[in-house]
């Protein structure tokens, strides 16, 4: 074979390899989705949402307490993370030149890379140990810590997308810097930020490791913030590692709910960003 022929062959092999890599990565995704949906749908019914878990050996029952728990925990996390995250994001984008802003950005990226189990340990030491009690508050705190960097970076990116002329316009009208940010720049970026928050919530709702020893788990219905609280993820973990058939079925149903939350949120966010992009393109 000529050397050109060899080079062409090598090139085609390489292209085939890259296409193959995509297929290889899609196989597990397809498998995971297939099993979660096919197994989950078997045991997912109305009772799953409206009933409490039944004792071992009795079939039926649901995970109402865990679903409510996940909602409460995500809500607490958002209460903590949205203000801090948005303000850090504003700082990073509006004072982008300063050395301190670079440090904040570095801290946000670092916090983002901290393993979730370490976040859990930290929350345990700070929010569980002093009160000698696992609590929903501690769980929300741990989740909030994970949510802050995501929201901060999203806010920063979206604010940077706002055209500089809008800032300059506000400043030229005599607005102070803070005024310009809060009444002109921030509102322009708001829809995108809301999308980012929704995505962050979807991610946070799927976290297990930080909850294991902060919110712990609770076999009963509880909305008290000072008591341990159940969550979908921890409950799925308990069920999946347990020995009972019924539990495994419930675990698959729980996984299906979790995956649907993620899927729906990502799809919605995708549609929303596409609409935003079109709006920006038009203006």
């Amino acid at each position, binding site marked *: 074979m000529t050397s050109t022929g060899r080079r062409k062959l090598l090139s085609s092999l390489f292209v085939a390899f890259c296409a193959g890599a995509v297929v290889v990565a899609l196989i597990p995704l397809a498998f995971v989705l297939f099993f979660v949906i096919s197994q989950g749908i078997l045991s997912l019914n109305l009772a799953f949402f409206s009933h409490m878990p039944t004792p071992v050996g009795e079939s039926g029952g649901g995970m109402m307490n865990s679903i409510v728990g996940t909602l409460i925990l995500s809500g607490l996390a958002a209460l903590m993370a949205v203000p801090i995250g948005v303000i850090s994001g504003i700082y990073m984008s509006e004072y982008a030149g300063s050395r301190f802003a670079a440090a904040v950005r570095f801290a946000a990226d670092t916090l983002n890379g901290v393993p979730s189990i370490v976040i859990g340990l930290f929350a345990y030491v700070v929010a569980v140990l002093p009160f000698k009690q696992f609590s929903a508050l501690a769980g929300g705190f741990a989740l909030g*810590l994970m949510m802050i960097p995501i929201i901060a970076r999203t806010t920063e990116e979206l604010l940077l997308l706002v055209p500089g002329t809008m800032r300059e316009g506000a400043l030229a009208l005599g607005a102070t810097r803070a005024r310009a940010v809060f009444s002109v720049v921030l509102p322009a970026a708001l829809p995108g930020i809301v999308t980012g928050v929704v995505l962050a919530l979807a991610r946070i709702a799927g976290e297990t490791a930080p909850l294991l020893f902060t919110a712990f788990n609770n076999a009963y219905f509880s909305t008290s913030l000072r008591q341990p609280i159940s969550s979908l993820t921890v409950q799925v973990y308990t069920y*999946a590692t347990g020995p009972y058939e019924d539990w495994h079925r419930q675990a698959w149903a729980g996984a299906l709910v979790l995956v649907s939350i993620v899927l729906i949120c990502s799809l919605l966010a995708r549609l929303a960003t596409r609409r935003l992009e079109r709006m920006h393109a038009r203006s």
Partner: protein
Amino acid sequence: MLIALVCGIGVVLAHQSMPSIQKFGMSFWRTEIWDPVSGEFGALPFIWGTLYSSVLALLIATPIALGIAIFISELCPAVLRQPLVFVTELLAAIPSIVYGLWGIFVLVPAVRTVERALPDSLRRLPIFSGPPLGLGMLSAALILAIMVIPFISSISREVLKSVPPAQREGAYALGATRFEAIRAAVFYARTGIIGAVMLGFGRALGETMAVTMVIGNNPKVSLSLFAPQYTMAAVVANEFAEAAGELYLSALVEIGLVLFIITLIINSLSRLLIWSMARSETFTPEPVEAEAPA
């Protein structure tokens, strides 16, 4: 606020692990015995398990992730690009507990079947020794690989995007084949790609739930892919809530502290690499979260 938080995590964990640091010192990291009942704590098996599983996962994930990145950024028709990006990001968005559940009930039995089918002559090699349980290093590495692929590929894609088109055009103009032109682009972007792989490494080190559920949780150092082992994150997840005694708790916190420090170093390094790539180009680094909206 954020900066204080990051420092705070380190300080608080260090403070809490003092009893164990004082009692065991460096021998903590060299001892292989983990026996909470008699109060002996050695973390070597966990370090080994964490590093071994992450390195294996990267060996599997890196070529695939790079292939995906190159396919999406260089080869694929424009119609396919957005859907492919979305789908690979979906891979990152699936909660780790769901991967774990799938791992226990689907992947582990599949791996067990493969392990059983392995011919005896190969089974004599140390990396295939031990009973074919399914639960063990191989399953953990596979699941980790699936989970880090989207991170590595989305950052490599960004990095490749920042390679100036002139690089490729130049290569083509010299008569390069597609492969040779892409190789030139990848070579140009090598720093950033190494950064992306390291970022994936950091993810793999800290991944908890899915690994805990499939690795078998046995604190033994072993080279075998079939042997159940243990990772740092998994031992904390499994034993922390029921750890009795101050020394036991503080030993676990010390493991967490070291995990924190290792991931901190790896993340900072990889970020530096990606940034140094960025600074030379007009390229804004994306946040690590692959699914953050653009």
